[in-house]
């Protein structure tokens, strides 16, 4: 009797397994696929997600590169004030102190044109350098690389950069009061660091 029951139980188990096996195998395969997708997703998230340490290192590299490309004094201006001034080259006067107009370059903000002699704000030129390959999930250059790209484009081919930019009246993106404060800071900085800059001093 016991032997018969045991045999029946074994046969039953084998039958159930045979019936369930295709479903079990496909469920197992699905679970394995899902697990693989989860792992890939989390690996990808780890690679492209925001990493403050990586961004800080990137910015540090960008600052060193900017420093090696611009004049020592321009570097000091950017380091101390957070923006660069570039003299305009398309006016009647040469692109140096005393130029008809100048630009302020901020990281990831529009380029602002102004008249150094009066402090009058002229225009905002909204321009970006998006990297569509989006390494690390972002198209945005480190701050100092953005400033370097603007500086290179402006000093190399001012007209082309201005043509590529969206031009707006002052105040579209940057508060004009902030720019005026920055011009005052620039004038003070130039006095303190010993540059003879009567235009900007008068403007401020």
């Amino acid at each position, binding site marked *: 009797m016991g032997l018969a029951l045991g045999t029946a139980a074994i046969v039953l188990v084998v039958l159930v397994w045979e019936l369930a096996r295709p479903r079990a195998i496909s469920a197992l395969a699905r679970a394995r696929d899902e697990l693989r997708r989860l792992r890939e997703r989390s690996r990808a998230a780890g690679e492209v997600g925001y990493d403050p340490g990586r961004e800080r*290192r*990137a910015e540090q590299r960008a600052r060193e590169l900017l420093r090696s*490309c611009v004049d020592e004094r321009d570097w000091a201006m950017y380091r101390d004030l957070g923006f660069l001034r570039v003299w305009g080259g398309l006016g009647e006067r040469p692109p140096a102190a005393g130029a008809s107009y100048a630009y302020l370059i901020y990281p990831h903000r529009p380029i602002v044109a102004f008249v150094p002699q009066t402090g009058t704000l002229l225009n905002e030129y*909204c321009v970006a350098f998006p*990297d569509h390959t989006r390494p690390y999930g972002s198209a945005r250059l480190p701050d100092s690389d953005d400033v370097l790209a603007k500086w290179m484009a402006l000093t190399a081919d001012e007209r*082309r950069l201005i043509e590529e930019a969206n031009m707006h009246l002052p105040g579209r993106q940057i508060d004009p009061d902030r720019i005026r404060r920055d011009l005052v800071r620039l004038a003070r900085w130039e006095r303190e660091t010993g540059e003879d800059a009567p235009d900007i001093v008068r403007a401020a």
Partner: protein
Amino acid sequence: MRGAAAGEAVCHNPLTMKLLRLKPGHGEIVLAEGDVEAPEQEQELIEAFRRELDAGMWAAVPLKTPDGRRQAELVKSFSDVPRDAERVIFFPRAAGGAPRTDR
């Protein structure tokens, strides 16, 4: 020398040239480096240069003008790069920025 017309290249070793690319999340990366006087290395530099331009990058060479000012020069072909240039910097081409208002 070609570079002398526009300005003196910002350069310490007149023969070794680096092609750099500004990259989000990283800062600059070195794409290629070599001696422009060595034909094989120059060819590698030319190929890397073309790849970047084909990818839509702008190329700039940092220069020093005769009066000592720093500026850059945009170049469209490797033959426009001063032979004594230390670096060519590639960066994404300019585009009119988004009309973001964050005041």
